């Protein structure tokens, strides 16, 4: 950032990148009518969205959640229950789901951050909260218990149920683009600077007048909101939710692995990570067929390898290569 606190040219370039990305992906359905291709892109974008949500709190805030399914499941259940029991239109239910998940984020954050939980403790407590929610969802009547909830099929854009994948693709792309813009704001705005300062050194941040509690609280609410949007989207696509899908560890793991593989605290990392993992799991499905668990084996192996060899993720690798390049250039010039 030079001088007067305006946005750097690099920042503007990223903004342009986001616009190009959104336009390119949005025009895909005009180029291809292949359901397989559109479905692949839609699922990759969905995986990107949950990775982006995790990245806001984990990558920029340094708070590693092992239970992000907590917000995903809450969004999914609000979306389903509002339609089923409340008779509310899906488009109206969507902001409710997003707001409800943000509220759960505020609740969990106000408990955990008030008592200064961090690191491994925060990770385990978020996991415990997700488990509590899963057991409650299994036990209370309005979630349908273990049987789950089925949202009736009423195909029309007005019901947020589209006849082709294109409609869903545009909806999830809108969320991914919003998350990219929020991430861009985290990298360029004042709030993001505070959040990263709290991540890097909480005491130092406090010493210069930042309130770590409120900063982290805002981050978990934003992160929860995007996760809730993903949950609502899931319900609209698959028209079904149950406690295992909603609050099980699968979604939590998927979110954090994609963000870490792509590069925590970066703008494009979650998109890179989610897409790379998606391509990888598609390849294995073609190689080995539908074997139960093979996908997650690969996720686990990739996670361990990345943590050992590339702790800054794919995007971080690009960064260090560029730094190497820049270093070489300056040495020669």
């Amino acid at each position: 950032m030079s001088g007067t606190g305006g946005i750097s040219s690099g920042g503007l370039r990223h903004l342009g990148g986001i616009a190009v990305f959104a336009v390119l992906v949005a025009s895909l359905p005009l180029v291809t009518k292949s359901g397989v291709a559109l479905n692949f892109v839609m699922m990759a974008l969905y995986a990107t969205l949950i990775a982006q949500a995790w990245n806001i709190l984990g990558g920029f805030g340094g708070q590693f959640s092992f239970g992000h399914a907590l917000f995903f499941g809450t969004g999914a259940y609000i979306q389903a229950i509002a339609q089923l029991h409340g008779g509310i239109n899906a488009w109206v239910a969507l902001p409710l789901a997003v707001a409800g998940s943000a509220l759960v984020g505020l609740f969990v954050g106000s408990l955990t951050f008030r008592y200064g939980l961090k690191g491994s403790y925060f990770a385990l407590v978020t996991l415990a909260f997700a488990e509590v929610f899963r057991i409650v969802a299994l036990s209370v009547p309005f979630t349908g218990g273990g049987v789950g909830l089925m949202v009736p099929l009423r195909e029309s854009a007005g019901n947020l149920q589209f006849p082709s994948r294109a409609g869903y693709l545009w909806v999830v792309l809108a969320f991914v683009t919003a998350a990219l813009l929020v991430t861009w704001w985290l990298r360029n705005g004042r709030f993001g600077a505070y959040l990263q300062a709290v991540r890097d050194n909480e005491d130092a941040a406090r010493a210069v007048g930042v309130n770590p509690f409120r900063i982290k609280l805002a981050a978990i609410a934003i992160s929860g909101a995007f996760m809730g949007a993903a949950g609502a989207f899931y319900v609209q696509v698959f028209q079904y939710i149950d406690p295992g899908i909603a609050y099980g560890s699968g979604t939590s793991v998927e979110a954090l692995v994609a963000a870490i593989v792509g590069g925590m605290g970066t703008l494009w990392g979650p998109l890179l990570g989610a897409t790379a993992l998606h391509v990888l799991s598609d390849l294995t499905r073609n190689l080995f067929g539908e074997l139960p668990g093979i996908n997650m084996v690969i996720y686990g192996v990739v996670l361990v390898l990345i943590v050992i060899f590339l702790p800054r993720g794919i995007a971080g690798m690009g960064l260090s290569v560029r730094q190497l390049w820049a270093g070489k250039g300056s040495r020669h010039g």
Partner: protein
Amino acid sequence: MFDFSILFPSVLNGLTTGAVYALIALGLTLIYGVLHIINFAHGASLMLALYAVYFLKESWGIDPYLALPIVIPGMFALGYGLQRIVINRAGHGKDENILLATLGIAIVMENLALLFFKSDTRNIDTAYSLSTVAIGPAMIAVPKLVAFAGALVVSAALFWIMGRTDLGRAIRAVAKEKEGAKLMGIDVDHVYAMSFGIGLACLGAAACFLLPAYYVNPQVGGGFVLVAFTIVVLGGMGSFVGALVGGFLVGVVESLGGLYLGESLGQIGIFAIFIGVVLFRPEGMFGAKA
């Protein structure tokens, strides 16, 4: 509601389960106390040990209790190798990285089990599986009594190793003052791996005691992970006495919770304890400081 003839068997049952929980938690707290890392793969490792016990019985007809001298060294070797080859390299100076590495290991273990053994729940048949003994008004299954006694014996052995042997002294030295121990000529990486190995060896013993009265499937570890963490934070991270007392307490809470709230809702008691202790008294009952 608080009838003695209902309450007593329930508490007794909780204590027998609690002894095995304590054994599992001892392994976890040892690893935490020495390496200062939370082994997220603890539950998945227990699941692997349970499968080992299962296949030893089903394929070679080896009784679970006779399998102890096979499964304990096997789990020790697994732990030693994991720490040396994988976990040691993942840290880069940050606790979270180790947690992520052990999470990755847990995911791999669980899903390899799913891949090879399918999601079927399996149990074994032994001559004593269904026999019971009367203690007062309670009928207690024989395998549960054996598990109770066995867990106490293994815990005593662990206390002896830690308190009376050179290995135990080296482990305690490294836990207290890593740099100082290194200067005294202790191979810290070896001690780390030994501690991790002993931690998983506890799981091997626990698996042999558990399976005759329990079952195994690829997801079985998940349930134990949070229970073990609850016990460890309740007792105080790194405290051995805490893990023992915490194990019994959690066993009884789970048993009584199941009695009064029903099977699925009863588990919430454990998570409530976990969240409550971490938030309000993170140093636990016997821990020195957070």
